[in-house]
């Protein structure tokens, strides 16, 4: 195991966030506050409660997930895409380092960054609403698993993308709609039955549902199923990354 290599990749990636510290911290704080103003106050004053939870609090897990998913993907995809784009990837490819170690460095750093952002959002949300976390351990577990899975997905996108447009395509066209339609701001039970069925095909629903359960013990689908789905997704991403590394897909000629 080349610990030094993992360490420097991790450090280097974290340093990148450090350079843009203000953006790293300010943007989730500002956007979370805005969501609270718009959804929490404007809409929340009409909805009052969802499944016994105040609307303001109800949307917190969804809000965190929204940022977590987009941040994980954009951090991880940019982290690996940029060296490919500038050509500096040659150094990583010629280093005595296994693909697993490359992954550990890049995905580890991206996941850490989104974890930090998730925590910032949670703290910001705590300023607006009363939050109780029923299952802190599971809350953390869902948080970490999500950060890792979606950083992996971001890593895959960063290797797949051959232009900056493609890099932005998936987060914009796929992830954001899935999060919005996955029950971030409402309970699926509020939808007409036909739409409820459609929503069940949205993988993000399982994430948000499980995560929300760890706060309020209310969920759209069972917690076990949520956990199973996220682990399945994690496994799937691992499989794709493994295949990419094995074949050198878009990394090596």
């Amino acid at each position: 195991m080349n610990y030094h290599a993992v360490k420097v990749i991790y450090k280097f990636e974290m340093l990148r966030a450090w350079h843009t510290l203000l953006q790293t911290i300010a943007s989730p704080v500002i956007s979370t506050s805005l969501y609270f103003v718009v959804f929490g106050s404007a809409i929340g004053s009409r909805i009052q409660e969802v499944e016994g939870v105040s609307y303001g609090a109800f949307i917190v897990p969804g809000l965190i997930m929204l940022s977590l998913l987009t941040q994980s993907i954009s951090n991880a995809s940019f982290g690996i895409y940029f060296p490919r784009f500038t050509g500096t990837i040659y150094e990583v490819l010629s280093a005595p380092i296994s693909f697993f170690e490359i992954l550990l460095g890049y995905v580890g750093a991206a996941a850490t960054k989104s974890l930090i952002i998730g925590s910032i959002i949670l703290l910001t949300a705590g300023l607006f609403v009363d939050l109780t976390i029923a299952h802190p351990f599971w809350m953390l577990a869902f948080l970490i698993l999500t950060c890792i899975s979606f950083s992996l997905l971001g890593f895959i996108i960063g290797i797949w993308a051959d232009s900056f447009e493609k890099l932005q395509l998936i987060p914009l066209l796929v992830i954001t709609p899935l999060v919005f339609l996955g029950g971030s701001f409402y309970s699926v039970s509020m939808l007409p039955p036909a739409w409820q069925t459609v929503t069940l095909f949205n993988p993000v629903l399982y994430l948000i549902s499980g995560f929300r359960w760890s706060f309020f013990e209310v969920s759209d689908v069972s917690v076990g199923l949520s956990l199973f789905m996220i682990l399945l997704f994690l496994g799937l991403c691992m499989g794709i990354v493994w295949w990419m590394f094995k074949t050198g897909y878009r990394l090596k000629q």
Partner: protein
Amino acid sequence: MQPIISVKHLFKTYATGHHALKDVSLDIMEGEILALLGPNGAGKTTLISSICGIVTPSAGSVSVAGYDIITDYRKTRELIGLVPQELTLGAFDTVWNTVSFSRGLFGKKSNPEYLEQLLHDLSLIEKRDSVLMTLSGGMKRRVLIAKALAHEPQIIFLDEPTAGVDVELRKDMWRIVEKLREAGVTIILTTHYIEEAEEIADRVGVINDGMLLLVDDKKSLMHDLGKKQLEIELKGTIEQLPESLSEWDLVLSDDGGQLTYTYDTQARSTGITALLQAISDAGLSLKDLKSKQSSLEEIFVNLVNLDS
């Protein structure tokens, strides 16, 4: 001497279908400086990239210090430093950070003294906290060299280290190479400049269209280089060389109108005066004289042309 790098029947076909390497076999000795010469697109970078693990060979094998580059990649890559042809560097990092990164990436624990000395040797020490994108092209090339040397490799590949570099930096570059050689580092460099290969290398390899045409000691190439030819055009023609001229290294042209004399410029005397005397004594008269030297460049161009 044991070869430190052994390339055996290496082939590379890119996804485009282009055959960039065709059955290249090559042994590189420990501590030597090998120059790879070849025109654009010959396959020099592809060969280097294959050995370093950036390009996956289509067939064949490479071993470094006895280890296979695929199965024992950790061992082989630790030993190798690569200075790429393009100026590929990050933009926002500092010199110090990027060099430290390289060292760690290759599995070496940090050693600020060594890196400081390295930056010093490369005249980069004053730039250690500079951001990469603020450096000039020549400085960036030095940084690339520093990165390649950061993990104290035993083998270093320099892919066209002097392309687009001014005279001053080129001299610096050769000083660096000389220093590395003294430290026992094996150096493989590619270049388009034949004088450069002549000046610095122990052996020269010529590669064209994916094939290694020759690898030879520079000395034996220099030997060919040291040969000069004198073309002597005669008034009229002769059937055969007169008996009195048989002791000279002379060739009579097919039409009998020209003699070619090959001699060694590095010998103490070329024998030209005596030859001309002998020719005139044999009753032949001269129409014209022309001397020409076969340069390494010519050998190179001939080889490449012959090949294509």
